[in-house]
Protein backbone atom coordinates (compact mmCIF):
# COMPACT_ATOMS: atom_id res chain seq x y z
CA UNK A 1 0.00 0.00 0.00
CA UNK A 2 2.66 2.34 0.93
CA UNK A 3 4.47 1.35 -2.22
CA UNK A 4 1.44 2.34 -4.24
CA UNK A 5 1.46 5.79 -2.67
CA UNK A 6 5.15 6.03 -3.47
CA UNK A 7 4.48 5.10 -7.08
CA UNK A 8 1.84 7.78 -7.40
CA UNK A 9 4.21 10.31 -5.87
CA UNK A 10 7.13 9.58 -8.16
CA UNK A 11 5.21 9.16 -11.36
CA UNK A 12 2.85 12.05 -10.58
CA UNK A 13 0.59 11.18 -13.46
CA UNK A 14 -3.00 10.36 -12.83
CA UNK A 15 -4.00 8.53 -15.97
CA UNK A 16 -5.78 5.21 -15.65
CA UNK A 17 -3.10 3.13 -17.32
CA UNK A 18 -0.38 4.42 -14.98
CA UNK A 19 -2.50 3.94 -11.92
CA UNK A 20 -3.36 0.38 -12.95
CA UNK A 21 0.22 -0.60 -13.70
CA UNK A 22 1.40 0.94 -10.44
CA UNK A 23 -1.25 -0.91 -8.49
CA UNK A 24 -0.32 -4.27 -10.03
CA UNK A 25 3.41 -3.83 -9.58
CA UNK A 26 3.30 -2.43 -6.07
CA UNK A 27 1.15 -5.30 -4.89
CA UNK A 28 3.45 -7.75 -6.65
CA UNK A 29 6.53 -6.32 -4.96
CA UNK A 30 4.79 -6.21 -1.60
CA UNK A 31 3.67 -9.81 -2.00
CA UNK A 32 7.17 -11.01 -2.92
CA UNK A 33 8.74 -9.25 0.04
CA UNK A 34 6.00 -9.92 2.55
CA UNK A 35 8.17 -12.25 4.64
CA UNK A 36 10.25 -9.36 5.90
CA UNK A 37 7.62 -7.11 7.32
CA UNK A 38 7.90 -7.37 11.08
CA UNK A 39 6.01 -4.35 12.11
CA UNK A 40 2.79 -2.93 10.77
CA UNK A 41 2.10 0.43 12.38
CA UNK A 42 -1.40 1.46 13.21
CA UNK A 43 -2.98 4.72 12.32
CA UNK A 44 -2.77 6.31 15.78
CA UNK A 45 0.93 5.50 15.93
CA UNK A 46 1.50 7.27 12.62
CA UNK A 47 -0.33 10.29 13.98
CA UNK A 48 1.85 10.38 17.08
CA UNK A 49 5.03 10.03 15.02
CA UNK A 50 3.89 12.92 12.86
CA UNK A 51 3.36 14.99 15.98
CA UNK A 52 6.83 14.01 17.20
CA UNK A 53 8.58 15.23 14.05
CA UNK A 54 8.33 19.01 14.68
CA UNK A 55 9.90 18.59 18.11
CA UNK A 56 12.71 16.55 16.59
CA UNK A 57 13.20 19.28 14.05
CA UNK A 58 13.51 21.87 16.78
CA UNK A 59 16.19 19.69 18.42
CA UNK A 60 18.00 19.42 15.09
CA UNK A 61 18.14 23.19 14.64
CA UNK A 62 19.30 23.75 18.22
CA UNK A 63 22.15 21.27 18.06
CA UNK A 64 23.10 22.31 14.52
CA UNK A 65 23.70 25.85 15.66
CA UNK A 66 25.75 24.56 18.59
CA UNK A 67 27.82 22.31 16.32
CA UNK A 68 28.41 25.10 13.81
CA UNK A 69 29.71 27.25 16.62
CA UNK A 70 32.09 24.43 17.61
CA UNK A 71 33.39 23.92 14.09
CA UNK A 72 33.87 27.60 13.32
CA UNK A 73 35.67 28.24 16.60
CA UNK A 74 39.34 28.86 15.76
CA UNK A 75 40.67 26.65 18.55
CA UNK A 76 38.39 23.70 17.70
CA UNK A 77 37.33 23.01 21.31
CA UNK A 78 35.85 19.56 20.72
CA UNK A 79 35.94 16.72 23.20
CA UNK A 80 34.55 13.61 21.51
CA UNK A 81 33.49 10.73 23.70
CA UNK A 82 31.65 7.45 23.57
CA UNK A 83 28.57 7.17 25.77
CA UNK A 84 26.72 3.95 26.45
CA UNK A 85 22.98 4.31 26.90
CA UNK A 86 20.62 1.70 28.30
CA UNK A 87 17.19 2.46 27.00
CA UNK A 88 13.97 1.16 28.47
CA UNK A 89 12.23 0.84 25.15
CA UNK A 90 10.61 -2.50 24.47
CA UNK A 91 10.11 -2.42 20.71
CA UNK A 92 12.32 -2.97 17.71
CA UNK A 93 10.64 -0.12 15.90
CA UNK A 94 11.05 2.19 18.88
CA UNK A 95 14.76 1.45 19.13
CA UNK A 96 15.13 2.02 15.40
CA UNK A 97 13.34 5.34 15.73
CA UNK A 98 15.53 6.31 18.66
CA UNK A 99 18.73 5.44 16.81
CA UNK A 100 17.59 7.27 13.73
CA UNK A 101 16.71 10.37 15.72
CA UNK A 102 20.06 10.34 17.49
CA UNK A 103 21.93 10.00 14.22
CA UNK A 104 19.82 12.65 12.53
CA UNK A 105 20.58 15.13 15.27
CA UNK A 106 23.94 16.68 14.41
CA UNK A 107 26.63 16.20 16.99
CA UNK A 108 25.56 12.75 18.09
CA UNK A 109 25.68 9.52 16.14
CA UNK A 110 24.67 5.97 16.95
CA UNK A 111 27.65 3.67 16.72
CA UNK A 112 26.35 0.31 17.84
CA UNK A 113 22.95 -1.12 18.68
CA UNK A 114 22.50 -4.30 20.67
CA UNK A 115 18.82 -5.03 21.29
CA UNK A 116 18.14 -2.05 23.54
CA UNK A 117 21.60 -0.88 24.42
CA UNK A 118 23.09 1.87 22.33
CA UNK A 119 26.61 3.21 22.07
CA UNK A 120 26.55 6.84 21.07
CA UNK A 121 29.43 8.95 19.88
CA UNK A 122 29.00 12.54 20.96
CA UNK A 123 31.04 15.53 19.98
CA UNK A 124 31.10 17.38 23.25
CA UNK A 125 30.28 17.20 26.94
CA UNK A 126 27.12 19.23 26.46
CA UNK A 127 25.83 16.98 23.70
CA UNK A 128 26.58 13.76 25.56
CA UNK A 129 24.76 15.04 28.62
CA UNK A 130 21.88 15.82 26.33
CA UNK A 131 21.79 12.17 25.35
CA UNK A 132 22.08 10.95 28.92
CA UNK A 133 19.19 13.11 30.06
CA UNK A 134 17.02 10.88 27.82
CA UNK A 135 14.64 13.50 26.50
CA UNK A 136 14.29 11.82 23.13
CA UNK A 137 13.80 8.45 24.73
CA UNK A 138 10.97 9.54 26.97
CA UNK A 139 9.24 11.14 24.00
CA UNK A 140 9.50 7.90 22.04
CA UNK A 141 8.35 5.85 25.01
CA UNK A 142 5.34 8.13 25.09
CA UNK A 143 4.63 7.39 21.45
CA UNK A 144 4.76 3.65 21.86
CA UNK A 145 3.04 3.45 25.22
CA UNK A 146 0.10 1.29 24.21
CA UNK A 147 1.71 -1.14 21.81
CA UNK A 148 2.53 -4.76 22.51
CA UNK A 149 6.17 -5.09 23.62
CA UNK A 150 8.18 -7.41 21.41
CA UNK A 151 11.74 -7.20 22.65
Amino acid at each position, binding site marked *: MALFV*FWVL*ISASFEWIHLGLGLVFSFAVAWINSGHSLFVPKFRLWLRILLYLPWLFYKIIESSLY*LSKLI*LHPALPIDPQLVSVDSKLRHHAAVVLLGNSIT*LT*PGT*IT*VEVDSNKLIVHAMDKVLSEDIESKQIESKIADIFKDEEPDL
Partner: protein
Amino acid sequence: MDILSIIFIVAGLFFMIVAAIGVVRLPDVFSRSHAVSLTDSLGAFLMLVGIAFHEGLGKNTLKILVVLALLYILNPVIAHATIRAAFRSGVKPWQKKSS
Protein backbone atom coordinates in the same frame (compact mmCIF):
# COMPACT_ATOMS: atom_id res chain seq x y z
CA MET B 1 7.94 34.46 -2.28
CA ASP B 2 11.29 34.87 -4.01
CA ILE B 3 12.78 36.64 -1.01
CA LEU B 4 11.62 33.84 1.26
CA SER B 5 13.23 31.22 -0.95
CA ILE B 6 16.47 33.21 -1.15
CA ILE B 7 16.58 33.41 2.63
CA PHE B 8 16.09 29.66 2.96
CA ILE B 9 18.68 28.80 0.33
CA VAL B 10 21.28 31.13 1.79
CA ALA B 11 20.77 29.61 5.24
CA GLY B 12 21.16 26.14 3.77
CA LEU B 13 24.33 27.20 2.01
CA PHE B 14 25.69 28.56 5.27
CA PHE B 15 25.26 25.18 6.95
CA MET B 16 26.80 23.42 3.98
CA ILE B 17 29.85 25.67 4.06
CA VAL B 18 30.24 25.02 7.79
CA ALA B 19 29.98 21.28 7.14
CA ALA B 20 32.62 21.41 4.40
CA ILE B 21 34.97 23.31 6.72
CA GLY B 22 34.29 20.69 9.37
CA VAL B 23 34.98 17.81 7.01
CA VAL B 24 38.35 19.29 6.21
CA ARG B 25 39.25 20.38 9.74
CA LEU B 26 38.09 17.69 12.12
CA PRO B 27 40.53 15.04 13.30
CA ASP B 28 38.94 11.60 12.82
CA VAL B 29 36.19 9.59 11.17
CA PHE B 30 33.70 9.81 13.98
CA SER B 31 33.74 13.56 14.32
CA ARG B 32 33.79 14.05 10.56
CA SER B 33 30.61 12.06 10.30
CA HIS B 34 28.96 14.65 12.53
CA ALA B 35 29.82 17.32 9.99
CA VAL B 36 28.40 15.23 7.17
CA SER B 37 25.19 14.66 9.10
CA LEU B 38 24.97 18.41 9.65
CA THR B 39 24.78 18.94 5.90
CA ASP B 40 22.43 16.09 5.37
CA SER B 41 19.88 17.07 7.91
CA LEU B 42 19.74 20.83 8.01
CA GLY B 43 21.52 22.07 4.89
CA ALA B 44 19.58 19.85 2.52
CA PHE B 45 16.34 20.60 4.32
CA LEU B 46 16.72 24.35 4.07
CA MET B 47 17.84 24.34 0.44
CA LEU B 48 15.10 21.99 -0.72
CA VAL B 49 12.45 23.98 1.13
CA GLY B 50 13.79 27.13 -0.51
CA ILE B 51 13.54 25.56 -3.95
CA ALA B 52 10.07 24.29 -3.14
CA PHE B 53 9.01 27.86 -2.30
CA HIS B 54 10.43 28.99 -5.60
CA GLU B 55 8.48 26.36 -7.49
CA GLY B 56 5.16 27.08 -5.87
CA LEU B 57 2.47 24.47 -5.37
CA GLY B 58 2.31 21.60 -7.80
CA LYS B 59 3.63 18.21 -8.75
CA ASN B 60 7.26 19.34 -8.60
CA THR B 61 7.00 20.52 -5.02
CA LEU B 62 5.46 17.21 -4.08
CA LYS B 63 8.36 15.38 -5.68
CA ILE B 64 10.88 17.62 -3.93
CA LEU B 65 9.24 16.72 -0.64
CA VAL B 66 9.52 13.03 -1.56
CA VAL B 67 13.26 13.46 -2.18
CA LEU B 68 13.54 15.25 1.16
CA ALA B 69 11.77 12.43 3.00
CA LEU B 70 14.02 9.90 1.28
CA LEU B 71 17.10 11.83 2.35
CA TYR B 72 15.83 11.97 5.92
CA ILE B 73 15.15 8.25 6.06
CA LEU B 74 18.23 7.02 4.22
CA ASN B 75 21.03 9.27 5.41
CA PRO B 76 21.02 8.20 9.07
CA VAL B 77 21.09 4.60 7.88
CA ILE B 78 24.15 5.24 5.73
CA ALA B 79 25.97 7.19 8.43
CA HIS B 80 25.21 4.53 11.01
CA ALA B 81 26.37 1.71 8.70
CA THR B 82 29.63 3.45 7.92
CA ILE B 83 30.36 4.34 11.50
CA ARG B 84 29.49 0.87 12.75
CA ALA B 85 31.84 -0.63 10.18
CA ALA B 86 34.56 1.74 11.33
CA PHE B 87 33.91 0.92 14.98
CA ARG B 88 33.85 -2.84 14.48
CA SER B 89 37.01 -2.90 12.44
CA GLY B 90 38.80 -1.22 15.28
CA VAL B 91 39.31 2.44 14.51
CA LYS B 92 39.97 4.19 17.77
CA PRO B 93 38.07 7.44 18.33
CA TRP B 94 40.22 10.49 18.63
CA GLN B 95 40.61 11.60 22.24
CA LYS B 96 41.42 14.99 23.56
CA LYS B 97 44.94 15.07 24.90
CA SER B 98 44.55 14.96 28.67
CA SER B 99 46.46 18.14 29.49
